[in-house]
């Protein structure tokens, strides 16, 4: 089965004509949908042919843990926050997860997924607490047939799960796109390798096409960016040790805080002024954060990003686009266009609709696209009108 990909960005060196962009994307989407249906039919045929063989499937993770499943996982417990929405996107429904991290549940309720899958409102979150520590009894009470857990913070968060006799697979989170490892692993565990292939291909193709469009970009053309991991009661930036830093660099920017080795670190306002980023990105973990708060901050008035009003709140679709999630390619489209409006012009209505239909089997309602892109919060920021042109 050939995987289908999202459209590559429509590179335009001249003034954008919305009508032209529209005309260009609609056939694309029809082709995509047709291919999707065809691939599902093909999958159904193959699945029908293999039913009854009951071949055991062995899935191995990046840390060498492996589990052997007699049948695809039906009741998984994805404990690390980013895997909660992956456990919906990869099988394409909300029936494969029995619990999720509280932080993951929060974004399910905050973003699109609560509307798509109303049953998520009842999803229990007691199986995992702060510091990724599992609550074994709560976890056992959800009766999972497979547990996903982080593999990089020691045995203490894993040993109780293994001792309880639950099969467990682990993930790493580094300063790279680790989701490329998670997707095939979860696809194999759920018995939906072809869907996982598509999701992975969409991810790789989108990244490749952005990388290609950015080819030849000089250092002087890379805008400096600070991604604020917390603002208000504290000032934290994304340091060089995080996916979000890799993301800035991959989208043709420079993370001003790359010298900071941690995933995120507290800094003084003075340090931000010394870095003087051209663009400031606001995290979506604080749902009420708005660029206007930064514009109104008397201490930050002299920042280039404030003077030129280039502060942007990161969008939220099914999950937070800034994080390593199934919708990361949408976040990359958004960020690449934000950093290089002369090189990128994505059709968000088409891309988001196609992505949500593929990932969740749901069509976002018409007013949802603007809400995902945070048109209200970002409307006072330079150039954001291009995102509301659809």
């Amino acid at each position, binding site marked *: 089965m050939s995987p289908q990909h999202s459209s590559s960005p429509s590179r335009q060196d001249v003034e954008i004509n919305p009508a032209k962009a529209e005309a260009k994307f609609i056939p694309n989407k029809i082709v995509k949908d047709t291919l999707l249906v065809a691939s599902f039919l093909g999958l159904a045929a193959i699945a029908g042919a293999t039913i009854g063989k009951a071949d055991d499937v062995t899935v191995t993770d990046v840390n060498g843990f492996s589990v052997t499943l007699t049948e695809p996982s039906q009741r998984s417990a994805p404990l690390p*926050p980013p895997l909660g929405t992956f456990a919906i996107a990869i099988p394409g429904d909300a029936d494969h997860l029995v619990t999720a991290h*509280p*932080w993951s549940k*929060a974004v399910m309720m905050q973003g699109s997924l609560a509307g798509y899958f109303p049953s998520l409102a009842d999803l229990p979150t007691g199986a995992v*607490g*702060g*510091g*990724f*520590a599992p609550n074994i009894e709560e976890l056992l009470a959800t009766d999972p047939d497979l547990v996903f857990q982080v593999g990089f913070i020691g045995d203490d968060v894993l040993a109780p799960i293994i001792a309880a006799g639950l099969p467990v697979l682990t993930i790493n989170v580094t300063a790279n796109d680790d989701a490329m490892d998670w997707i095939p692993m979860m696809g194999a565990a759920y018995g939906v390798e072809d869907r996982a292939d598509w999701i992975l291909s969409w991810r790789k193709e989108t990244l490749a096409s952005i990388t290609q469009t950015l080819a030849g970009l000089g250092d002087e053309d890379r805008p400096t960016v600070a991604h604020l*991991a*917390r603002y*208000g*009661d*504290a*000032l*934290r930036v994304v*340091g060089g040790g995080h996916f979000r830093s890799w993301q800035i660099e991959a989208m043709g920017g420079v993370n001003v*805080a790359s*010298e*900071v080795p*941690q995933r*995120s*670190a*507290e*800094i*003084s*306002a*003075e*340090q931000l*002024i*010394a870095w003087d980023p051209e663009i400031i990105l606001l*995290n979506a*973990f*604080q749902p009420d954060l708005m660029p206007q708060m930064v514009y109104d901050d*008397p*201490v930050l*008035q*002299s920042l280039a990003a404030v003077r030129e009003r280039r502060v942007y709140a990161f969008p939220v679709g099914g999950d937070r686009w800034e994080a390593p999630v199934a919708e990361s390619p949408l976040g990359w489209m958004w960020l690449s266009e934000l950093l290089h409006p002369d090189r990128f012009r994505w059709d968000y209505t088409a891309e988001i609709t196609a992505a949500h239909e593929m990932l969740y089997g749901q069509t976002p309602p018409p007013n949802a696209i603007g809400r995902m892109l945070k048109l209200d919060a970002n409307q006072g920021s330079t150039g954001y009108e291009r995102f509301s042109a659809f």
Partner: protein
Amino acid sequence: MSVSAPSEAAPQSVAPASIGLVWARTALASGGWLLGCAAVAVIGIVALGLGRYAIEPLDVIRILLSRIGFIETDVSDTARRVVELVRAPRILSAALAGAILGMTGAALQGIFRNPLVGPQIIGVTSGASFGGALAILLVGTTAATVGFAFVFGLVAVFLVYTIARVGGRAPVLMLVLAGVVVSAAFTAFVSLIKYVADPNDTLPAIVYWLMGSFATATYDKLFILTLAVLGSVLVLHALRFRINIMSLGEEEATALGIRVEPTRWAILAAVALGVAGVVSVAGVVGWVGLVMPHLARMIVGPDHRKLLPAAALAGAGYLIIVDTLARTMSAAEIPIGILTALVGAPVFAVLLRRLHLKGWGRG
């Protein structure tokens, strides 16, 4: 600097001395206080010239002078904002916090007659920590963090008071034990909050805040801190002589006509006010209230009329220096609690050795 140290030089037992000698001693003592204040001021001004954003030291002076109206200057707006809105409130906050921590530490060591006592012993630190952590978890705004820390700091002291009070009075031992109990309870609540906090961003914010930092100092926070410190200092200063008598022991104080219970509670409330103010704007800053009173006692002796302002000056200067290190050593802030402990622990070890020789023996 806004550290106001009472510069009276109360001469003691000078009855047979000539008037000239009294004058000379007064002048000498005043000179000492002036020197102390000047040292803190110099530390503050030097700190104002240091930071991650490079500003010429002369430009810092120009900005200060132009703000007072002495000169016109064309220093960049950015430099002006860094000095006036980032560094100045931060240095003033550190100075005030250091001063009140030193002063309250000295007062507590006096009334508990114990050199190992610091502000954390009466539960106020852990109560305020819980309040602040709760606010970060539930609300996430600065005003809430400050308000919650303040209220829960006072609640903790009230609980200590209620538990320790047996038959209308609260013996020192009961106070200390009640303080341990209340601190343990609030520490457990803080752990609970850390457990349920979002490990991605809220948890680091709470952990960082608990370690103590002046990184988000603003004039609004400085204002709150100033009110708390003023209230605390006024009470402690008014009771400085009674603290001397209380440090002789409960029976002696009663024999000398001091109403021990009300006096002790007035002092504890004043300490709670000051420390809750510090925790609410800067989180937990350990060791200053424990170490600085000892340093001050080595210089001016155990008389609280001198010891309280001396500990305040020492605390102010010390905390400005430590905070300057915290904000300049690397791009990422170093939590100030780590630095105060790293510096405080060995200093305290040395002081403890010396305590056998002087200071407490004279009390």
